[in-house]
């Protein structure tokens, strides 16, 4: 890392569809809020990923989709590294994490650092193994089973699965279904995108809370911000939320980090029932799209991550302020044709911004 140039940090997840934005732009915005300068490189997968053109990034590049495998990603990252002299990468999307984790050692040798969970840690919080993890850390987890055929939704009541319940994709997507017809429709829709098997999960009645945290890799939770969703998009993503503090939820986050020695960002999704007890729903191995709230609440987790990745000593993070509300808005970024052309044809925004 050069001493007279700001550290160069690449951030993925530059997609920002209003109903389901990626976390990348929010992470970049947090880094912009940090008390030091970074050169921020946005990494996207589509020429229409808004973050590539945002002023919150100094440059933007396209990556091959994770399905292209580690070789294609390695080649592309090294080409970008030759242009940008990357110091660090912050992967922000679930699907790309295994590929980045597989390349972590090679990239480190090239001077590109990341703070990522290991492949074993990623697997331990996979939906298919979450029940086991929940038992280990003493958190309630709604009964879940694997489903491979749509006929299940007609057999469900006879097999003890009364409607409504939740249908989930193996990596992503979830829908509450109330009838066999809704179930089969959801099954086909989700399976067509994410493959089989799907999961069905008992519906826990309550309110959804999220914890964004940063595992230090040694079993500790370096920082955490807790949020209650106040408004949702049609996809169930937070459109508004407010910071809260509940020691019980914080303890869930600490227990997960402790059990897994989690390295890097994570998001814990939980439902709080009427007795105040938490039911673990999901663990996402990355920052959430609402992570800018951490900066707004005075506990800038991406900034802390950048410090850790760059090898700096992490000062204790201040506790986030409680009662800080975010309300998301969607806005248009005006893109000159030349910039769109440069990304669509050459895979990179033109020049430095």
């Amino acid at each position, binding site marked *: 890392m050069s001493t007279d140039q700001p550290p160069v940090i690449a951030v993925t997840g530059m997609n920002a569809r209003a109903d389901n934005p990626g976390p990348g732009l929010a992470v970049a915005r947090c880094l912009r809020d940090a008390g030091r300068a970074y050169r921020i490189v946005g990494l996207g997968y589509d020429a229409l990923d808004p973050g590539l053109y945002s002023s919150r990034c100094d440059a933007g590049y396209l990556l091959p989709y994770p399905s292209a495998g580690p070789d294609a990603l390695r080649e592309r990252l090294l080409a970008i590294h030759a242009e940008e002299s990357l110091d660090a990468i912050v992967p922000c999307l679930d699907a790309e994490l295994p590929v980045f984790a597989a390349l972590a050692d090679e990239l480190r040798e090239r001077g590109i650092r990341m703070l990522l969970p290991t492949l074993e840690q990623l697997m331990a919080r996979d939906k298919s193994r979450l029940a086991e993890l929940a038992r280990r850390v003493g958190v309630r987890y709604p009964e879940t089973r694997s489903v491979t055929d749509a006929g299940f939704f007609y057999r469900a009541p006879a097999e003890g699965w009364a409607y409504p319940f939740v249908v989930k994709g193996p990596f992503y997507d979830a829908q509450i279904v109330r009838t066999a017809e809704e179930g089969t429709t959801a099954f086909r829709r989700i399976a067509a995108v994410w493959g089989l098997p799907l999961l069905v999960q008992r519906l826990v009645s309550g*309110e959804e*809370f999220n914890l964004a945290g940063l595992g230090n890799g040694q079993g500790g939770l370096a920082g955490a911000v807790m949020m*209650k*969703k*106040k*408004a949702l998009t049609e996809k169930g993503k937070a459109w508004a*939320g407010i910071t809260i503090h509940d020691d019980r939820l914080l303890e869930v986050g600490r227990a997960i980090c402790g059990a897994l020695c989690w390295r890097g960002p994570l998001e814990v999704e939980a439902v709080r029932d*009427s*007795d105040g007890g938490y039911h673990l729903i999901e663990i996402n191995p990355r920052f959430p799209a609402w992570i800018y709230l951490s900066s707004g609440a005075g506990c800038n987790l991406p900034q802390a991550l950048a410090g850790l990745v760059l090898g700096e000593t992490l000062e204790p993070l201040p506790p986030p302020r409680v*009662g800080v509300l975010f309300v998301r808005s969607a806005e248009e970024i005006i893109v000159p044709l030349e910039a769109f052309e440069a990304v669509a044809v050459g895979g990179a925004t033109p020049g430095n911004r």
Partner: protein
Amino acid sequence: MRVLKRRQRVLGLVKLGEGESTDNNKYVALEDGLMSPPEVAEGKQHSRDVDLPSAALLDRLAISESGFVFDPVTGNSYTLNLSGLTLLRRFQRTADLEELVALIVAEFDVPPRDAERDIIEFAATLRQHLKP
């Protein structure tokens, strides 16, 4: 309707923004008379405590002058009218029904039996909405 002076209702608590609930609760606009008033024996109506949420739960609430109430643990927010605000603040110090009735009677010029009934209903509303 039990009318309080300044046209304030004790049952003036509205929960804000519950669109995230999985059981599809939406805005809760409480209506007067949700609770049946308890039968109170003459001479004993001011000799007991109101059944309130726990002191820890009441103490954690952030209550503003405007009647905006925020629960930092659940993230829920509410608005109170003046009589609700007056009562909630007093609930943080006492559950003594006699003292609470005297407060409402003095502040809002209502008959003691109406004040008592509204206080008990308001306490029940709080127990319903404020969770541990």
